[in-house]
């Protein structure tokens, strides 16, 4: 289903939001305000924005440690997300989860996962619950190319196929499994071949093209809602930053990275050019970008102004009832 101009503008907003959110986190990390882990999704924003435009609030999302873009596009509050990054009690996980576990049940966002590939069986369970309940929700999970070599990913695909659960597996193939090229660790050029082993319909999509991404996810969502089982999508993309903050990136050529940052490959610039072609003016694009800047500044201020959790909070949320 083709995206309307309004939807494309929403997509553009979400992509710029994801990128600028990450840039702000990077700056705050360098200032020592954010600690721990930070795996930025810069360069991969179209997979998130295209997918979110195909989903409803009650569809489930389980993303991973590189999932800020996915959660923001699915509707998590930038204030709650930034407060989480700063470990504040107003964060989307009360400051207990940090960068890698953002959650917002009101938007169908289940806890993001920091173990490579581990979200797949869980998302199959969520999809199976929808099927057993007889609703037409789907459950979507994102994972990287590296995850396709984890055993549990294969177990999960087999279970989804067996149960014909409405799970949508979106593999963001950014060519690097952490700091090692996927080509060095895998003898499949196309990772959709992994889905074929389980009789799961699969397709390859240009992950830096929001419209192509949206179309593919729409097909998967339709299949899921109609009770036709799981789908595997391999989104070819590229992270134009390191695996995590501080990554030296000695494993790849700078020229390769620069090529992916070029206007004809960068997902945001590609959509920007498309919007201009649809008649949007440069100042209208700038207005979207300025709105993103305002939202992020507001989120940072909110996060900085928020208190840390009370120390007593360590005993809360371990079990249903507080311990000790």
């Amino acid at each position: 289903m083709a995206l309307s101009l309004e939807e494309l503008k929403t997509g553009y907003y979400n992509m710029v939001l994801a990128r600028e959110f990450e840039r702000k986190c990077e700056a705050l990390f360098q200032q020592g305000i954010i600690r721990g882990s930070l795996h930025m999704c810069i360069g991969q924003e179209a997979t998130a924005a295209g997918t979110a435009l195909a989903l409803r609030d009650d569809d489930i999302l389980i993303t991973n440690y590189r999932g800020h873009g996915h959660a923001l596009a699915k509707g998590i509050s930038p204030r709650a997300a930034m407060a989480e990054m700063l470990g504040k009690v107003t964060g989307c996980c009360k400051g207990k989860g940090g960068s890698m576990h953002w959650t917002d049940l009101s938007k169908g966002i289940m806890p993001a996962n920091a173990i490579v590939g581990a979200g797949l069986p869980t998302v199959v369970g969520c999809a199976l619950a929808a099927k057993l309940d007889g609703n037409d929700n789907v459950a979507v999970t994102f994972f990287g190319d590296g995850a396709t070599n984890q055993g549990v990913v294969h177990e999960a695909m087999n279970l989804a196929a067996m149960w014909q659960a409405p799970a949508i597996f979106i593999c963001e193939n950014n060519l690097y499994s952490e700091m090692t090229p996927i080509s060095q660790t895998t003898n499949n050029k196309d990772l959709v071949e992994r889905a074929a082993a389980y009789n799961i319909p699969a397709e390859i999509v240009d992950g830096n093209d929001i419209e192509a991404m949206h179309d593919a996810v729409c097909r998967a969502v339709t299949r899921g809602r109609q009770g036709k089982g799981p789908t595997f999508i391999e989104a070819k993309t590229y992270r134009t930053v390191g695996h995590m903050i501080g990554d030296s990136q000695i494993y790849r050529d700078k020229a390769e990275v620069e090529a992916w940052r070029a206007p004809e490959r960068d997902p945001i610039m590609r959509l920007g050019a498309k919007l201009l072609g649809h008649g949007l003016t440069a100042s209208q694009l700038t207005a979207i970008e300025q709105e993103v800047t305002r939202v992020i500044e507001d989120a940072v201020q909110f996060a900085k102004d928020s208190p840390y959790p009370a120390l007593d909070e360590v005993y809360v949320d371990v079990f249903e009832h507080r311990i000790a």
Partner: protein
Amino acid sequence: MRELTYSQALREALYEEMARDANIILLGEDIGVYGGLFKVTDGLLAKYGPNRVLETPISESGFIGAAVGLAMCGKHPMAELMFMDFAWVAADQIFNQACKMRQMSGGQVSVPLVIRTQQGGGRGNAAQHSQSLEAHFAHIPGIKIALPSTPYDAKGLLKQAFRENDPVIVIEHKLLYNTKGNVPEQLAPIPFGVADVKRTGKDVTLISYSRTVLHALEAAETLAQAGIDVEVIDLRTIHPLDMDTIAKSVRKTTRVVIAHESHRNAGFGAELSARISETCFGWLDAPIERVGALDVPIAYSQPLEAHTLPSPDKIVQAVKRVKL
């Protein structure tokens, strides 16, 4: 008085709980037509159908992960782990996922998951099918641990497991399934964290759980003939732990023996010993003795296995050492 075997009592609990709560779904290997390796789920597929009794492939990580997803989406799954030793296969999904979702999400997500499994040696199953691993679970916050020693407790504790809104592991013992005991038709769930004083005594406190309770009671009989009056405590759950009952008994007897089938080194007895030292040091008249399996893999050959595992006689000797 009605007698049931341990496995009949477990099965009755499942029948009753599944009738009470339509959200209870069973998953596991061979649990449907075959009725489970130890026949605990016999007849449940016929009674409740394939949407509630789900036969899984041999994918412990996969189906326990799927159970986590089901639990987060409003179901109350019970995953049957055929042998406790396979917990390592599913360790990520149990320890990194099920145990942490509530906390990582700041309390937004609940994981009401019951894992049923069986452990222990004495049947010649050798090193990969005979281990007792409850101490590993006790080390990780976020899961409750029940170890019934009788048919009565098996039914009552399993019923309680389904009343918890958190992960629970019910650890059965493979040599208890055919043991018989009194189980009333109407049996309320047994609250967790309430130890059962199986036998009162004034000379020595003997703390145990699971099948080793039977050894402890046999040892107590032998010791009674030698004039030593032993109090036997069955913990029933080790998380939560009923320290009140333990402390009350220790302050009365001033001498303690802890007996379990898991390895002695870093076994749960070590934790119990430390806690008793912290709370009852001034009352103790002898060092605390621990009886456990030797710190070696459990061998197949019958004499070697028997030499490795605890026995009533080893418990008798330990009690005599503290009562010199």
